[in-house]
């Protein structure tokens, strides 16, 4: 009995010892779990705070890069990548219109194994360049999707081919170069109500107008006559008035040589191109005082200047000659200098006809050069790589002459000599080819837009005016 009691006590002691040990182990496990949990929570909180701090710094870096970009001319804003400490900044810009650039800044950094980033997009607007530039922000909603609306047919005088179009507020101005100099050469169309456009006035400035630009209350014309430059006051659109015209000094008029051919307005100046002559073919004229324009400088191109585009100090002219594209530096208009020139393959049969600078890219349109020409009519070249042997970075065979080019955001709008596809829309990198085309009764000539629609003019004096707006 006594032995049995001793055995029981010994067993109980063993059991109690075992229980205490297991409780201690359990308590240890609970404490370990609690410790691990609190460490995990604290670690997570710590990484969240590190992330918040890095995100704050990244935000400051983004703001700094966007602020510093505001110090540049929008034409000089370029893309870059830079690394500071743990942060890598990618700054990219793209063309929106002649006075706006889209900006995207992305700052990334590594947090442990994770790549984090903050990005911000913005726009930089140079309002000084907005004067004379088309206001087409509604095209953001249109993308490549526009609808042609023709609410009635608009006709002008017979045998008066259309040459160009510009919009100024709720009025559209259409220039013509008729067979006889007695015909009007500028028509004013009221487009307050785009469903009911009306020709409200016209004016005859002389032999005919080859090209027009507009800003403020004026239409600036390159006249196809010996007075190559003209300024028409349209403050009262019902009564357009020729207020000044001039023969450009140094240009040698002979036949049609030396006549006005192309014009561009930028920063209170007219940039005028002439038909090839024995003198200079490119002129810059200060029109700050519209009644007393002053010729600032000229440059001998050696060929007819078919089209001109200006981005800040850089001017691109295109010609039908061997030097298809000439890039000029006009930072000092008194001493215009050449930056580079390029001779496009097939220039012998395909002259450069139209040009638009879109950021760093120069988009050039050429003539058809015959149906069997293998060369593309629409080309894109990098202005920074332009030289005598440069080739297009991308191109398209359009089987039509490219008469006029307009760029907005990431789309290009064209008029072409093919009536079946007189108006076309493409992506700015030419990917996907033609997105939309529209047929007319005659070749597309030029296009422009205002804050409600895009206006396309075709060559024939009958049914020459076409309106494109949002598809609804």
């Amino acid at each position, binding site marked *: 009995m006594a032995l049995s009691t001793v055995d029981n006590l010994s067993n109980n002691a063993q059991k109690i010892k075992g229980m205490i040990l297991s409780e201690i182990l359990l308590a240890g496990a609970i404490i370990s779990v609690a410790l691990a949990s609190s460490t995990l929570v604290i670690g997570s909180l710590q990484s969240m705070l590190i992330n918040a*701090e890095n995100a704050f710094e990244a935000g400051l870096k983004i703001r700094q890069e966007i602020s510093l970009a505001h110090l540049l001319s929008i034409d000089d804003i370029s893309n870059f990548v830079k690394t500071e400490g743990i942060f890598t900044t990618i700054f990219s810009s793209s063309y929106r219109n002649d006075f706006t650039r889209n900006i995207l800044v992305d700052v990334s950094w590594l947090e442990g194994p994770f790549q984090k980033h903050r990005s911000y997009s913005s726009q930089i607007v140079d309002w000084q360049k907005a004067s004379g530039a088309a206001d087409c922000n509604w095209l953001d909603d249109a993308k490549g999707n526009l609808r042609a609306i023709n609410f009635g047919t608009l006709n002008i005088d017979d045998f008066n081919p259309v040459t160009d179009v510009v919009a100024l507020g709720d009025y559209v101005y259409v220039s013509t170069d008729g067979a006889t100099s007695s015909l009007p050469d500028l028509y004013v169309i009221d487009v307050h109500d785009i469903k009911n456009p009306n020709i409200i006035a016209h004016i005859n400035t002389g032999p005919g107008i080859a090209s027009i630009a507009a800003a403020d209350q004026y239409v600036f014309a390159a006249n196809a006559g010996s007075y190559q430059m003209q300024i028409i006051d349209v403050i009262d659109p019902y009564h357009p008035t020729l207020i000044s015209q001039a023969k450009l000094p140094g240009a040698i008029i002979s036949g049609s040589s030396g006549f006005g051919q192309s014009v561009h307005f930028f920063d209170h100046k007219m940039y005028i191109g002439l038909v090839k002559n024995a003198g200079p073919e490119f002129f810059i004229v200060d029109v700050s005082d519209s009644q007393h324009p002053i010729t600032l400088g000229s440059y001998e191109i050696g060929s007819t200047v078919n089209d001109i585009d200006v981005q800040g100090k850089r001017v691109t002219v295109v010609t039908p000659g061997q030097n298809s594209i000439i890039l000029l530096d006009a930072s000092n208009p008194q001493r215009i200098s050449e930056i580079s020139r390029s001779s496009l393959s097939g220039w012998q049969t395909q002259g450069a006809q139209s040009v638009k600078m879109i950021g760093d890219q120069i988009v050039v349109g050429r003539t058809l050069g015959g149906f069997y020409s293998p060369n593309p009519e629409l080309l894109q070249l990098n202005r920074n790589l332009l030289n005598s042997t440069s080739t297009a970075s991308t191109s398209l065979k359009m089987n039509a002459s490219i008469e006029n080019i307009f760029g907005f955001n990431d789309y290009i709008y064209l008029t072409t000599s093919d009536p079946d596809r007189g108006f076309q829309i493409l992506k700015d990198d030419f990917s996907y080819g033609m997105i939309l085309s529209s047929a007319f009764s005659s070749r597309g000539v030029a296009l422009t837009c205002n804050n409600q629609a895009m206006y396309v003019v075709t060559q024939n004096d009958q049914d020459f005016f076409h309106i494109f707006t949002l598809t609804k």
Partner: protein
Amino acid sequence: MLTEVLIYIALFAALFSGAFMSVFQTLDATKYLQDQKNSIDNLYYLQAKLDLWAKSDTDWNVLSSASIENEVSRLVSSSNLLLDSLNSQIIETGTSTNRVMLLTLGINKKIYTFSYVQEK
């Protein structure tokens, strides 16, 4: 028996000291995290105050660098932050219609650059 008791005491001591240490460390870490969070909150608070000040109608060109730095110092201290260093810079170029102000602030041993744009 005595050995077992000593082992238990040692185990309990280790457990409790571990538990207390972890509690204190957790409290310490929580306090540190709270300070850090406050500091980040204060940085955002400072940014909002600087934004408001920089976007007021005042032409930066009429402000002396001393007055800019006084105002920025005041805003930093009112945001409960300690300012180690301060540098202000207003940049203009001939090619732009804008001017840019860069405020480089040393706070909590880090350098932060706040930037603002104003039309000339």
